[in-house]
């Protein structure tokens, strides 16, 4: 795991509660709001399970800590999106909270239903970008959520030891989480 330069993190008093909201203007027309919100709720829950940080949705986009939207091409932050595949999304380090996904991708919430060869799993990318929102940079561990690339039609949502150790070094551990359970899970999945 690695961090952004200066190791920024959300610095408000513990317990940290972060709100998130979706842009009312920059949405997708082929997924329902409910589907998108469910994918993000699952992604936020994965991180909240390992650190003492909670996330809650709000309708107030302007005042939310984390602001999420689907944008095309040049969307004003100096990092224009490039169409189908290529760059999938980006998010800013703490405590900025901006979280942008490329609206040109074919985002999927259920790969068994979505038949496109270029479909990208929304929850997987959301989980990765939330890592950036929390202060993690990219990892060199291929299995980690914070590894920078993701092939189309691939679902990768489980935090690995590398992700958990990185984020817990920033925020501490959720008292209900046991790292040993993840070691056992990793050992099992790696044979």
């Amino acid at each position, binding site marked *: *795991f690695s*961090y952004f330069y200066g190791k920024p993190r959300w610095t408000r008093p513990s317990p940290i509660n972060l709100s998130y909201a979706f842009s009312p203007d920059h949405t997708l027309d082929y997924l329902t709001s409910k589907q998108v919100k469910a994918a993000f709720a699952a992604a936020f829950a994965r991180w909240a399970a390992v650190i003492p940080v909670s996330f809650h949705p709000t309708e107030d986009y302007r005042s939310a800590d984390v602001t999420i939207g689907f944008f095309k091409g040049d969307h004003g932050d100096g990092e224009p*999106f490039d169409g*189908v595949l290529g760059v999938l999304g980006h998010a800013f380090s703490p405590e900025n909270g901006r979280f942008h996904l490329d609206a040109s991708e074919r985002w999927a919430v259920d790969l068994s239903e979505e*038949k496109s060869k270029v479909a990208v799993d929304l929850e997987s990318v959301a989980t990765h970008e939330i890592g950036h929102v929390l202060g993690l940079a990219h990892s060199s*561990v291929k299995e980690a959520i914070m590894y920078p*690339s*993701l092939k189309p039609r691939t679902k990768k949502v489980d935090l690995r030891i590398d992700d958990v150790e990185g984020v817990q070094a920033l925020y501490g551990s959720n008292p209900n989480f046991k790292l040993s359970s993840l070691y056992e899970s990793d050992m099992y999945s790696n044979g």
Partner: protein
Amino acid sequence: RPAPTPSEMATETLNATWHNFSKFLDAPRGSQLLGMSDLKLYFHRFGYLLPKRKINTTVTFSDEFDEEFESAVVEYQKRLGLETTGKLDKDTMETIMAPRCGMSDAAVHPSPAGLTKQLHTTQH
């Protein structure tokens, strides 16, 4: 025939931005290949290569597979968990062309294990 669904249309639309890089597979150091500058721009974008030249505010690179680019490839391979050959081998090219997060790989504070050297910071 019914109009295709958005899903079917998306299947026909493939991104060519990085797919064109496949022509650089196994390109040797010292070679001069048209479009190599675009691959160098990719390495610049994600934090592995600093430009030698700037025309106005536009970053430009040569089409030569030079020593500096080889070092950038090695750094990329180290950071992405690839075999460090310094060559544009199959694994490296597949990783380069894979869809990815737009965040630079460079703006990092190394983990205690000492993962990488710091190249530069970004606006993020």
